[in-house]
């Protein structure tokens, strides 16, 4: 197939434009990556700082972060919240979505409605805050783990997937005397691995990135999640956060490099699941657009 001159010109412009767009998207991250490896002298020189300067390369800021007590506990709390929150959510989603996927199940419309209604109308910040307080869950990771555990949106997505499984499989199991609960765990759940994987990734990223509930419910620093610690370091510049990092022999780094290193460290977990994300990401959006 021969291409016309206009077509070739268009493709060149298109590639150039998309490359430029990709560079501007990546630039802020590259900039911080480069700063995080820089010595103070290099970091305070004005410039674009796209690539680390290898003659002034240092790991000092990463070493400082590694010694920070707050960052480590924050990291640990975030991991606990993410893992526990994701496992619990998937369990509840599956258990709830299965009955809702059966059109002949008496009451299915009412049950679906009471779930969907919470997507359209919610109590908002204040009543949720008062609820957690009166349950005595303040300063408990449980308050964070239960967030999102009854997401109607994810339940509906899962329900739609269950509907696509042929019913004949379940009927033969029923004839053999299996109950719905057995059927769900033995037949339906193993067949639904792709949808569980997709939703698990979404829920995990949501938990990892969520910070507002922690801001509301957690006041003790040793129970705090990473995002709030990051907030204090990157946005509020809280003094004792610096004291904590600085106690570890501050010779050759300043705020700029430390903050850059903190940004990079917080992105690493997302980067490490990114290959999986990519595989399931588009599938996830498409699942979301199927209604029923």
């Amino acid at each position: 197939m021969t291409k016309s001159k206009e077509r070739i010109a268009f493709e060149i412009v298109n590639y150039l434009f998309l490359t430029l767009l990709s560079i501007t998207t990546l630039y802020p991250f590259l900039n911080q990556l480069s700063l995080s490896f820089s010595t103070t002298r290099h970091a305070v020189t004005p410039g674009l700082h796209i690539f680390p300067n290898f003659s002034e390369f240092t790991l000092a800021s990463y070493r400082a972060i590694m010694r920070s007590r707050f960052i480590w506990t924050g990291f640990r709390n975030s991991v606990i919240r993410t893992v526990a929150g994701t496992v619990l959510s998937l369990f509840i989603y599956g258990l709830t979505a299965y009955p809702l996927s059966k059109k002949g199940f008496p009451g299915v419309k009412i049950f679906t409605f009471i779930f969907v209604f919470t997507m359209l109308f919610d109590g908002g910040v204040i009543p949720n805050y008062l609820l957690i307080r009166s349950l005595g869950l303040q300063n408990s990771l449980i308050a964070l783990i239960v967030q999102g555990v009854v997401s109607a949106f994810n339940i509906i997505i899962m329900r739609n997937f269950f509907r696509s499984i042929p019913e004949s499989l379940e009927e033969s199991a029923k004839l053999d005397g299996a109950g719905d609960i057995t059927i769900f765990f033995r037949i339906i759940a193993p067949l639904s691995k792709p949808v569980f994987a997709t939703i698990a990734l979404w829920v995990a990223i949501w938990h990892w990135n969520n910070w507002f509930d922690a801001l509301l419910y957690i006041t003790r620093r040793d129970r705090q999640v990473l995002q709030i610690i990051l907030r204090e370091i990157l946005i509020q510049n809280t003094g004792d956060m610096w004291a904590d990092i600085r106690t570890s022999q501050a010779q050759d780094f300043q705020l700029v490099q430390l903050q850059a290193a903190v940004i990079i460290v917080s992105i690493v977990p997302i980067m490490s699941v990114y290959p999986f994300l990519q595989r399931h990401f588009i599938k996830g959006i498409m699942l979301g657009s199927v209604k029923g």
Partner: protein
Amino acid sequence: MPRVSNRLESSLKLSRTPLRRRNHPDVRQAHAADLRHRFRYYHQMYLMLIPGIVLLIIFRYIPIYGLIIGFKDYSFTRGILGSEWVGLYYFDRAFSDVFFLRALRNTFVISGLKLFVGFPVPILLALLLNEVYHQGIKRTFQTITYFPYFISWVVLSGLFLRIFAPGGPVNYIRALFGAEDQLLFFAIPEYFLAIVVGTDIWRRMGYAAVIYLAALASIDPQLYEAANIDGAGRIRQSLHITIPSLLPVASILLILNMGFILNAGFDQIFNMFNPLVLDVGEIIDTYVYKKGIVEFNYSYGAAIGFFKSVVGLVLIFLTNKIAVLFGGRDSSLW
């Protein structure tokens, strides 16, 4: 095996019996028998629903019930039930509170800008990506452009505070072009708004383009072949085939997004704003946080929250109706 499936099938058919025939005694009897049968057939399902329903009631419906403190003078010691009713006092107060009205206005301005400025960006991105025939290169561009979507606003705000800071890269570029001062971009209202809108569009464009790319992929290639034979060039093909086939998806997404106009992006703004730009940056959600949580005025915060939820609900129904009007049943949210 066929026995169960036949019974199930007949019961499903029965439940679709037209209403006027349901009143016939035979039909009613059969219907009751069918319902009993379905109850028995699915009885374990009720057990499975229990955990979800209990959690739903505790963490979703109790807070909705808790909104009644917006109509009461809530005190923590007396609890929700014991607090005194004050009727619409807090709603009256909200609408004579210039700071609330300012937050309301800012919410519409920021949401509106994000919606209408940001609307064409993912469409353009999808159109350009669609012209990249090399699958590997296309995927690379896509992977890069939707990467920011997975990073929290805490980190992204920290990132941009640094990029736009005095001594940062943006001021460096300005200096290259001869500027002698260093601008505090986040402290200047116009720049603050531009950064809020711009970075939000930047964060979401790759993600939003995925939906349009799917719409592009579903266009029948025969249309292009026919256009080729008729001698239509690339541009005419885009104008007459590509863009018209994106229009339904685009207009419906636009309409449906208008239903969420009261959400101006709390996560982003709360991490980006500062006292110097309150006049353009304070939105409903940040105001609720300030009044309710910081100043302990729970009833006032709940009243504003209630107002927001109700208006949100009405907007969603309204925009959904409009979407159906424009795009037919298929474009409904439910």
